[in-house]
């Protein structure tokens, strides 16, 4: 692969010479996504689900088409797809609606120390309010969760398992299917944080055994402000609404109200229809490229990057030594240089990588580092990006006087 044919589809690369390697934070958007959002506002903008006139019908259709595109992407029914703002809101919806209703004192919530704060703090809230207890699986340094950990911590009291599909720091894929099978045997429901997996891996909620699955549109090349929650139909049906207001009711009288059908019961207020329409364009783009291609590009570049980085004795890569187990995410440290300084100095050469604790402070502690720098690759990155980063590494130490 010499030239990446997809790169030209992204205006940010045509307009600047960025070496963008922070796609785990947010992806870049192709022309088709930007055009779709614009098209919505230019030719079908009205409040969806409300107006009885043509324009509003078009807006409603666009919004529901987007829902069908999402359900197709992850193997769900459209009525099981709830649009939210982002993965964080999706996870909170499950915590507030399912967690606070169905968990009780003495129940256990099982999660891992490698979760993003968004898949950790909502469960702590549930525990604090219900008297349930949160238990944490501790992975090995490469992210592997051993069977013995699972067998010890998954008990008859476990009522909910919250697990990230792909770690945003280590890039490892967790054995969600195996964990889900074990969890279902003890009667627990399984919540999957798929924020880092759906952009990179073919994801099917049934194959995974997910009862709930959350992700963000913006990491998938969709617009900001649109996210997804999948929920198993029978679970969503018995859950109370998360937010209350317009568009989520069947009828309201002064004596009471009945809720709208799924999924509208969970979509209170005016929805982000243009964002959903943009997300549909992102899914179409993703499907045109194909997960196989994405995998091939990412693995090749990750392999290149890790090969070069390991040649520097003062660079340390977190996670597996096998590039194919990174899903494009390479977290690293440089002896004597704080990750913030790494990122700032690289910025001087137009190279964009993130530095910090990546909203996973407990994992940092578990790995024994305070923070890391992180390069995360996606389908539009090319060899030039990796070469630029690799070649800039010795200069970082030099700038720091080392």
């Amino acid at each position, binding site marked *: 692969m010499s030239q990446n044919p997809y790169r030209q589809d992204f205006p940010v690369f045509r307009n600047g010479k960025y070496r963008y390697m922070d796609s785990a934070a947010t992806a870049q958007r192709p022309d088709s996504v930007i055009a779709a959002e614009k098209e919505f506002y230019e030719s079908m903008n009205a409040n969806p689900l409300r107006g009885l006139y043509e324009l509003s019908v078009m807006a409603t259709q666009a919004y529901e088409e987007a829902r069908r595109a999402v359900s197709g992407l992850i193997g769900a029914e459209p009525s099981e797809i709830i649009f939210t703002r982002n993965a964080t809101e999706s996870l909170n919806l499950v915590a507030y609606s399912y967690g606070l209703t169905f968990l009780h004192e003495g129940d256990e919530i099982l999660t891992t120390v490698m979760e993003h704060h968004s898949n950790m703090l909502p469960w702590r809230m549930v525990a604090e309010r219900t008297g349930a207890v949160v238990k944490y699986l501790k992975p090995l340094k490469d992210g592997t969760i051993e069977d013995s950990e699972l067998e010890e911590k998954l008990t008859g009291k476990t009522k909910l398992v919250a697990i990230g599909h792909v770690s945003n720091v280590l890039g490892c894929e967790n054995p969600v299917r195996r964990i889900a099978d074990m969890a279902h045997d003890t009667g627990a429901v399984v919540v999957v944080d798929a924020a880092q997996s759906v952009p990179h891996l073919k994801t099917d909620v049934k194959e995974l055994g997910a009862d709930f699955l959350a992700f963000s549109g913006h990491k998938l090349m969709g617009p900001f402000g649109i996210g997804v929650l999948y929920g198993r139909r029978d679970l969503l049906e018995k859950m109370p609404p998360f937010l209350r207001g317009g568009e989520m009711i069947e009828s309201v009288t002064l004596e009471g109200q009945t809720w709208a059908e799924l999924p509208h019961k969970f979509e209170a207020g005016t929805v982000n229809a243009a964002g959903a329409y943009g997300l549909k364009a992102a899914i179409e783009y993703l499907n045109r490229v194909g997960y196989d291609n994405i995998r091939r590009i990412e693995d090749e570049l990750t392999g290149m990057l890790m090969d070069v980085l390991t040649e520097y004795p003062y660079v340390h890569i977190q996670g597996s030594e096998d590039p194919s187990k990174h899903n494009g995410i390479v977290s690293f440290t440089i002896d004597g240089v704080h990750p913030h300084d790494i990122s700032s100095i690289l910025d*001087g050469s137009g190279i964009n990588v993130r530095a910090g604790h990546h909203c996973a402070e407990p994992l940092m502690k578990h790995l024994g580092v*305070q923070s890391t720098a992180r390069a995360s690759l996606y389908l539009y990155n090319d060899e030039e990006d990796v070469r630029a980063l690799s070649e800039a590494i010795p200069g970082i130490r030099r700038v*720091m006087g080392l």
Partner: protein
Amino acid sequence: MALNSIYGEILNEHNLRPVHKGRIENPSLVLDGKNPSCGDEITIELRVNDEDVIEDGCFTGSGCAISQASVDMMLDLIIGEKRERALKLYEIFMGMIRGEAGEEETEELDEAMVFKDISHMPARVKCAVLGWRTMREMLDGRLSVE
């Protein structure tokens, strides 16, 4: 890019060989400062005498080069000074970062002037001011040990 002009000999010297990193005897004020965006944490100790003079000071903890060097330079400036003078220097430093301090005033910051352009990198402002904010809180709040 402007920020890379901040990295250089002066900053490296204070980062690699900080003068004031360590502990002092009988501090009268001790306070932790935390940068929530990166989790970095420092502790500053100061000994202020009855005449309100900062007799000695030091810091411990880890952080990026910008936060470490900045707190070391700050201690250079305030040790031996009166409390009011240290608080005045705080105002000048913050003013410099906001681009509001006059040239003459800024000169008073000596080596700490290297952070003049940090505002071009908003994400790093917190690193540069971590020590200064902590110091101000110590001297303003009149915290005492234990």
